[in-house]
């Protein structure tokens, strides 16, 4: 039950073929339709090892096979990765944390109140909060600044799911049995990588959390909670 990772996974099939095909001389096929650098695989948000902090993780461009595919994966300089935080309960972002690559460095802005909300974003460079050198496949470079911690680079995919069986469940081919028993099922994402952006932020920078949205549908008693989502936005 993932979102675009499925799309990414399937899209690779059509998107990954760019090779110039030498056939019958009069004819070069178009490259398969491109544009995967915006595809979000996952969003995680959890209490940090310091309980006063919250950790935000966005993974993109998954799944990447080990070796050259992972090694060649890069963050697109035209793609802004934006964590959106609603701390008033109206599902409009009050704060954003933005990450974007320039050369070999990922720059982080915020959390700050953006000048505009919704489909379009700009970067207010005055809100730079830190930067980190993008890690390669055999190194882990992190940075801390302004009480925040930063990472950007390839990681093992933390997501696990029997995607192949899910397809059969949805298509009806696996009906009526459904999913496989533990031991027979297999995790499609095992052994695969993703590109990850990780930022850890003191809760004091996120404002006061609003009442939990579950109260709207009669589920009471859950602790106050921000509403958080991630977007990828391409430079126009």
């Amino acid at each position, binding site marked *: 039950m993932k*979102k675009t990772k499925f*799309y990414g996974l399937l899209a690779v099939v059509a998107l990954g073929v760019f090779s110039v095909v030498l056939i019958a001389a009069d004819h070069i096929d178009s490259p398969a339709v491109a544009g995967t650098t915006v595809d979000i695989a996952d969003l995680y948000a959890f209490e940090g090892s310091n309980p006063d902090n919250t950790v935000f993780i966005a993974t993109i461009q998954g799944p990447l096979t080990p070796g050259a595919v992972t090694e060649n994966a890069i963050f697109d300089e035209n793609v802004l990765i934006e964590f959106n935080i609603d701390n008033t309960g109206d599902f409009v972002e009050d704060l954003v944390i933005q990450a974007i690559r320039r050369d070999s460095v990922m720059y982080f802005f915020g959390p700050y109140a953006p000048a505009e909300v919704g489909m379009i974003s700009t*970067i207010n460079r005055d809100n730079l909060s830190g930067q980190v050198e993008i890690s390669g496949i055999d190194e882990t470079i992190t940075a801390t600044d302004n009480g925040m911690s930063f990472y950007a680079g390839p990681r093992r995919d933390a997501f696990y799911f029997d995607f192949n069986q899910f397809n059969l469940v949805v298509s009806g081919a696996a009906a009526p049995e459904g999913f496989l028993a533990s031991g027979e099922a297999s995790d499609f994402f095992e052994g695969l990588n993703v590109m*990850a952006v990780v930022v850890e932020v003191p809760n004091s920078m996120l404002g006061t959390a609003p009442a939990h949205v579950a109260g709207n549908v009669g*589920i009471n008693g859950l*602790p106050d909670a921000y*509403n958080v989502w991630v977007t990828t936005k391409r*430079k126009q």
Partner: protein
Amino acid sequence: MKIQNIKYIALSLCLGLLFTQCKDDDDNGNVIEQASCDDGIMNGDEEGVDCGGSCVSCFDLLDFSGTYRQEDIMGRPGINTVFSGSGTIKDNFNVSLVSDRASFQPIFQNTLEAYHDVYGDALGVSLDYEANILGLDAATFTTVLAQFDALQVAPNAQTTYFDPNTGLALTGRTLADDVIDISLILMFGGNDGARFDGNNGTPQLTSDGVGPGDRDFTLPFPYLESPVQ
């Protein structure tokens, strides 16, 4: 390279040196130690090519201008792919705003019922979604999915997507959370979470049967493991 080209390069290098010397000479009379901030070389106390140290800050040279338009969005895991049901709706969802998703609710509800029909047909019975362990009926459940599609993140509580033992739910998403099984329980588990759990002749729809395997979720920042080589 042709020899005459080498000569030209040598000549231009000489000119460059002369130029640098003159310039530095004008600045402070030091012809050796002072590097130039516009020689295209990282030298002196520079942190990048012609920036940092006594030159302009490297950050100031970077361009962050322009506008950026949304192409993908994600709150809770799986929502768009599982419930949209078609490429067009998926594409529309990706460029929609969280606060403007009312139109997706009936689509999501249809998809939820369609999943049940697949199994109803296979079993030769009529099957419908049944209010789930959180007590949400189909309309309410799909409203939550469509219109409140964000991770709820509680700053002052344990993080869990759903912990059946404590009943705590929706306070964030950890790396370890089995979001697939949780979502399946909410979709197919009925009011006790075990409606289609594979027992008593029911299809197994409340778990995909896989766990995290040997993944290590106990690591310090950045919390994720190094890439598989």
